[in-house]
């Protein structure tokens, strides 16, 4: 579904990604972990071209999206993204946050989008917040809304960039629950996170990134119980 070939990204002199290769299949839940500065967020942001790769190829559903001629807006319609800082639109109500993109991109009629938004809001238990504004919500509520906003586009894959890192500890659970439910529904997901429990429980594959490359890749059980590289063993001993 997503094929990444020899991906490099440089910010001026800072060589963040140094040749990433990976193949994500339909329905997989890929969890990416690694120390800060390892390039895992940059890798994720390259997948929907929020960062333009310096070199390398990214294929999405058989289309080479790193080709400058591709209409990236069209590609992004099918790739949902959830951010660490939620990034709900502060000037819009929750309902408008969710329906803005599907309506403006002419994917749905206004009524249809509203109906869809309400049923998604119900799924995450926030139906009564439809007319609220982002500033009135807690962090956990904001993040659940952000997930709903992405889902309203009917994406084929969901990218999560440290979705629980900016939350108070007591709110992490409610967001992870929504993500687990989403995983069970069969969504293809790529998740950058520090939540090892989530990686172990939900991931189909866990990747360890360090110094701009994927150092180790394995099923959760093998990954956590049998880490091969010394670097991963050190990392796990610090975080577990």
């Amino acid at each position: 579904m997503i094929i990444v070939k020899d991906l490099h990204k440089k910010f001026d002199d800072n060589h963040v990604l140094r040749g990433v290769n990976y193949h994500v299949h339909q329905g997989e839940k890929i969890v990416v972990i690694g120390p800060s500065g390892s390039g895992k967020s940059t890798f994720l942001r390259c997948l929907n071209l929020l960062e333009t790769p310096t070199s390398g190829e990214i294929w999405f559903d058989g289309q080479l999206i790193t080709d400058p001629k591709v209409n990236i807006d069209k590609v992004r319609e099918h790739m949902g993204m959830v951010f660490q800082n939620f990034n709900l639109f502060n000037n819009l109500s929750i309902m408008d946050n969710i329906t803005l993109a599907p309506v403006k991109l002419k994917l749905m009629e206004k009524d249809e989008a509203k109906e869809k938004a309400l049923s998604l809001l119900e799924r995450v238990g926030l139906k009564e917040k439809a007319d609220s504004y982002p500033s009135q919500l807690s962090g956990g509520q904001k993040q659940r809304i952000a997930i709903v906003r992405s889902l309203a586009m009917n994406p084929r894959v969901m990218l999560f960039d440290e979705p629980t890192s900016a939350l108070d500890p007591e709110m992490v659970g409610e967001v992870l629950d929504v993500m687990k439910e989403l995983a069970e529904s069969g969504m293809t997901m790529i998740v950058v996170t520090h939540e090892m429990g989530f990686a172990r429980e939900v991931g189909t594959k866990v990747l360890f990134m360090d110094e701009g490359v994927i150092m180790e890749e394995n099923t959760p059980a093998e990954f956590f119980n049998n880490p091969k590289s010394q670097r991963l063993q050190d990392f796990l001993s610090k975080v577990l």
Partner: protein
Amino acid sequence: MQAWFERVSELFQIAFVSGDRWKLYISGLGTTLEIAFLAAILGLIIGTIVALMKLSTNRRGKKSIWARIANVYIDLIRGTPSVLQLLIMWFIIMKSCKNGVLVAVLSFGINSGAYVAEIVRAGILAVDKGQTEAGRSLGLSKTQTMIYIILPQAIKNVLPPIGNEFIVLLKETAIVGYVSLTDLTRTASQISSRTYEAFMPLIGAAVIYFVIIKILTVLLDKLERRLRKSDNR
């Protein structure tokens, strides 16, 4: 005391009442407000367009050709006195145009646009980058993200400095006397030279400017408070 009071009342008569002179102030004020209002709108339009030009990037994320043009415009306007710009507009560029108000509106509008452009640019840059990223990640284009998400939030940021700019602009129109337009300041100075009494006309004009700007300030405050309220709904 009696004599002093009579003297003041006489001066007041000379400056405002005899020969229906108050009508001249009103007509002068009308010219001032007309030029300031139209120039402010023109400045706002030019400023917003130029700000967007200046923020535009090309494919590789470098300054676009539009950004370079915007920079030249801002440099030229900010680098020369506005009186000189007005004179150049009147005596050179629009030499054949006999409509002085139109020339003044164009000149002040173009001048104000350069300052407004920097204000609007700052307002846009002050909106969190995550808002743009969220919009783009949903498949909205650059333009759609700007219109529906960024500009509505930028307006709140720019209101105080824009109000400042309007006030400066209103007072700056006092220089249109240079191109023989009769605004409020020119009226006051004409009347003082005709009556050989400077005190009442000049102080009177100052009071009128002050009151107009005070009203403008109150209105801007109200608008700002209303926009802020929508933030915490």
